[in-house]
């Protein structure tokens, strides 16, 4: 009996890299499970949510643990389907619109992955197993294209600019725990894919295979994501949208790190280490942030920053937990963000030493984004917890006793405590993760970290000074922005990708409408001409129906039509002439070759 699986042999494996990812996934899902009981009482339809969550967990684990590309693709698609139900959970117009974006982008991402697999199959005899190291392709062009397709496919999932359009809508329309998981885990699936992509590409070091362009693409898109995410986040007034844009920005950090290691090869291992570390860190603090915003939503049914304020009095525990999360994402020393950002900063500095002027710019932009991040989160924290509440609403809300105060702590805060403790531990002992988990992962992927990390320390003076300056500048920018109202600036339509998309779509619809009109016009023209021709032909033929008579000599034939007779005679003569003159009318010289078949 043949094996039931045929061309598809599902396989799973574990190595130092996906170990990190699945521990992260398990931790986050556990935290969210503590959280969602209380939260979903507000949103409703918790059963559907829990089913979607569990299915997504299965799918995500499947992607991380997949041994071959087709298995990974299967779980990738399952992940798209199950997480779609997160995005449309609220079933309102905004959620459904976000769902469209999410579904289509994810499906298109999956289709690009299929293209990548097909071209990879053309490049090598057997599809390479994931985690088996660099690929030596037989067909370099096909391999390069397959890398590009994988990049696009995973990049869509990772929220890489310019493929990130779905992210702000989807992450803000989903319920808060789902947003935490979407931002915390699902976009990391994209990052995981990109890391494996780098592994297949041999980190650009394979002899005879020119894959530096991958590094360049990642560097460019990485820095663009960082910048665009932060600038857009600064302009947001809705807390969840702000966090969603920050996901784009922080993923930019990760993509930048991967770009550095793809570009520099073995010397760029710091970029890879920083990226892996940042994957974990971002998952933790982004989830914590979303959960925190969700807690406020549960208590106040509001996520608009300008309608909240002064909440530290009512919800002190949440305020403290959120403060830790904010410290984490801005990179304050003592928390985990500092560790990964330092690694990445070292990587970028190394690049700027080796590369040209553009790399120096990269380093400046890197720091700039750090300032922007701090500014944005200062704004978030200030407006949410510290500032005076908007007066009219404030008085009403204090009078309205229905709002819960934080006397009853629930699983929501427990979940955040879990995440915050992890963040603090990782922040105070960054060497643990770096040397025990990230370096082995890098080694499995083919990059050795010994030389780069020789003499490396997290707590150098320049790094600490640098981060404190960044933090201070960020807070200053925040206050300047708040006072001047610069954060309310709405960019013109043509400046945003979405606006461009809308404009393009509008133009395309016009064009399409006009093309259709022309098509109908042409069809009518052809149909009319045809009808006219047919009409005249029918009229001509009708003449044959008139009976006539033919007199030849003494006999008279009646009831025949002379015209028809004439036509037949002419046809018969033509046919005879034709056959007489061209016996081999098929013009094939093979008749001579045929022998009595």
């Amino acid at each position: 009996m043949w094996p039931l699986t045929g061309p598809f042999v599902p396989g799973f494996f574990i190595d130092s890299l996906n170990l990190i990812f699945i521990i992260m996934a398990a931790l986050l899902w556990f935290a969210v499970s503590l959280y969602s009981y209380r939260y979903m009482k507000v949103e409703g339809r918790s059963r559907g949510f829990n089913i979607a969550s569990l299915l997504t967990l299965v799918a995500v684990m499947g992607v991380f643990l997949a041994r071959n590309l087709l298995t990974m693709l299967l779980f990738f698609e399952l992940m798209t389907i199950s997480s779609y139900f997160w995005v449309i959970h609220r079933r309102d117009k905004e959620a459904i619109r976000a769902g469209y974006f999410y579904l289509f982008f994810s499906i298109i991402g999956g289709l690009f992955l299929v293209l990548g697999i097909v071209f990879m199959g053309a490049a090598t005899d057997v599809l390479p197993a994931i985690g088996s190291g660099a690929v030596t392709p037989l067909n370099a062009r096909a391999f390069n294209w397959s890398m590009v397709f994988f990049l696009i496919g995973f990049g869509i999932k990772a929220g890489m600019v310019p493929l990130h359009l779905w992210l702000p809508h989807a992450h803000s329309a989903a319920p808060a725990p789902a947003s935490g998981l979407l931002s915390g885990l699902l976009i990391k699936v994209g990052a995981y894919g990109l890391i494996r992509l780098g592994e297949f590409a041999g980190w650009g070091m394979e002899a005879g295979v020119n894959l530096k362009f991958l590094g360049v693409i990642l560097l460019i898109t990485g820095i663009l994501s960082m910048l665009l995410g932060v600038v857009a986040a600064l302009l947001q007034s809705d807390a969840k949208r702000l966090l969603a844009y920050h996901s784009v920005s922080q993923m930019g950090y990760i993509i930048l790190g991967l770009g550095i290691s793809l570009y520099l090869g073995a010397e760029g291992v710091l970029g890879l280490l920083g990226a892996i570390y940042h994957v974990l860190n971002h998952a933790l603090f982004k989830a914590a942030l979303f959960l925190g915003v969700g807690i406020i939503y549960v208590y106040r049914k509001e996520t608009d920053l300008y309608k909240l304020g002064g909440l530290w009095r009512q919800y002190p525990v949440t305020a403290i937990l959120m403060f830790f999360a904010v410290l984490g994402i801005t990179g304050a020393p003592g928390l985990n963000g500092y560790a990964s950002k330092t690694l990445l900063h070292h990587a970028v500095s190394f690049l700027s030493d080796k590369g040209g002027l553009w790399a120096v710019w990269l380093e400046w932009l890197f720091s700039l984004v750090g300032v922007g991040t701090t500014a944005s989160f200062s704004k978030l924290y200030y407006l949410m917890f510290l500032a005076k509440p908007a007066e009219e609403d404030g008085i009403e809300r204090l009078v309205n006793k229905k709002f819960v105060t934080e006397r009853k702590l629930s699983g929501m805060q427990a979940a955040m405590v879990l995440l915050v403790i992890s963040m603090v531990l990782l922040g105070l002992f960054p060497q643990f993760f770096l040397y025990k988990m990230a370096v082995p992962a890098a080694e499995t992927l083919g990059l050795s970290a010994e030389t780069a990390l020789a003499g490396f320390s997290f707590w150098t003076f320049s790094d600490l000074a640098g981060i404190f300056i960044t933090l201070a500048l960020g807070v200053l920018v925040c206050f300047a922005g708040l006072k001047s109202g610069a954060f309310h600036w709405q960019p013109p339509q043509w400046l945003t990708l979405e606006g461009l998309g809308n404009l393009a779509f509008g133009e395309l619809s016009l064009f399409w409408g006009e093309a259709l009109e022309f098509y109908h016009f042409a069809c009518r023209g052809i149909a009319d001409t045809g009808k006219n021709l047919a009409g005249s032909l029918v009229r001509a033929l009708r003449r044959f129906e008139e009976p006539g008579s033919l007199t030849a000599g003494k006999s008279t034939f009646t009831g025949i039509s002379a015209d028809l007779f004439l036509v037949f005679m002419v046809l018969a003569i033509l046919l005879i002439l034709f056959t007489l003159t061209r016996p081999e009318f098929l013009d094939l010289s093979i008749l001579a070759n045929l022998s009595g078949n």
Partner: protein
Amino acid sequence: MTSLILALMSALVGVLLIVLIPGENKKLRNSIVFLSVLLALVFSWRTGLLVFAGKSIGLKVELGRFVWSLRPDPLGVVFGLIASTLWLFTGVYSFGYMDNKEKQGSYYVFFLLALCVTLGVAFAGNLVTLYLFYEFLSFATYPLVIHERSPEAMKSGKKYILYSLSGAGLLLVAIVLTHHLAGNLAFGAGPILEGLSGPGLNWLLLLFVLGFGVKAAVMPLHHWLPSAMVAPTPVSALLHAVAVVYSGAYGIVRVVYSVFGRELAGELVFSKIFLYVIVFTILAGIIVAIRQDHLKRRLAYQTISHLSYILLGAFTLTPWGLAGAVFHMISYSTLKITLFFCAGIISELTGKSSISKMKGIGRGLPGTMVLFATGTLGMIGILPLNTFWGKYYLMKGSVAGGMWPLALVLIISGILNGVCFIPFIIKAFSGEKNQPAGKTGKRGYREYALFIPPLVLTIAAISMGLLPGMVWPAVQAVVDWFF
């Protein structure tokens, strides 16, 4: 050999029995139909398994110089098995659908007759037999198209017959020419026109393609298909999404591989030109589908688009391409039938057939819409549905054949398939509960007969997607036969 004959005869016997039933005995008639289809299924599977095991079975009747032969080979067996298996499901569905309709006797007679004829097309051993059964198929399915006897149905039937017979006429010319060139019309190990070459063969291929292309709904010969949607839904589902149109696609694949052969077809410039027509059909078919409001017409145009996937696989002239074509034949049929069945359930239980009026029906018919959604995911061609494998191998074939833009065309087509139906599904589940009129939620024999076939087919599709090894040996057999 006995299985072969019995496969065809069971349907015919069924026809005779039904014709002989006095009066309107629904239970008896339905049982006869079920038995006939089941027996046809059993015997065709027996035939198929024998062929896959390597045995060569055939039936040859020589009347003077006219040789009539049935000789299933792997490709024909695949088609025959698809047809007979899906006929069973459609039969059960028909029991539910046609329950309250008129002229059921006439319906079932031609239903069974079409089964017999389709198996004849599938198992045909030479071009003449193929042509005979192909022509007969048009006649056998005509009464099913005009079943309603409404003016619109008669018009569609006329169009159907005109298109089919014109195509078949060209096919006859092509067959005569082939006989003239090669003297032999049997599908054997090697292609019929082996060893021949020359530019004139382009015209021969054109004639064949025009002949079979009418039934395979290649644009611009496709106009009969959307009109034929006026037929009852089981007919639309089975015949005009699977049996009849597959006979056209099967015919073209047969022509390319058994008549011309891979090398010759590769040399002919027509193959390259026809690829452009195929690409046009794939893209234009689905784009036109997006603009349709009538649900069945939208499905019809999607059918037109997907049929050309099979032709694309055949014309890449690579083993992967052929594998993709066969895979697609198998997987697409299950899901397309499901989509049509769901459309039929919707029109039967809610009376609606226009998409613009179908907002919210998912609330009243959740199971049906879930099946529809799964079918749509299959049309896009993503795991875990089985159509993924068809597309995957088609793309591999395109790249291997040096025609990598075809892979992009398939991707774009997938996206367009999504655009075509995903908004409809989402609208169906949103909004007010659009309760089917008069439906009280009680499930009778009719509801079960309507719902269970698509449910089983969807489960089968997902299983095939996760375990493609279920159908892989068949695909392998076909590829090994020709390569």
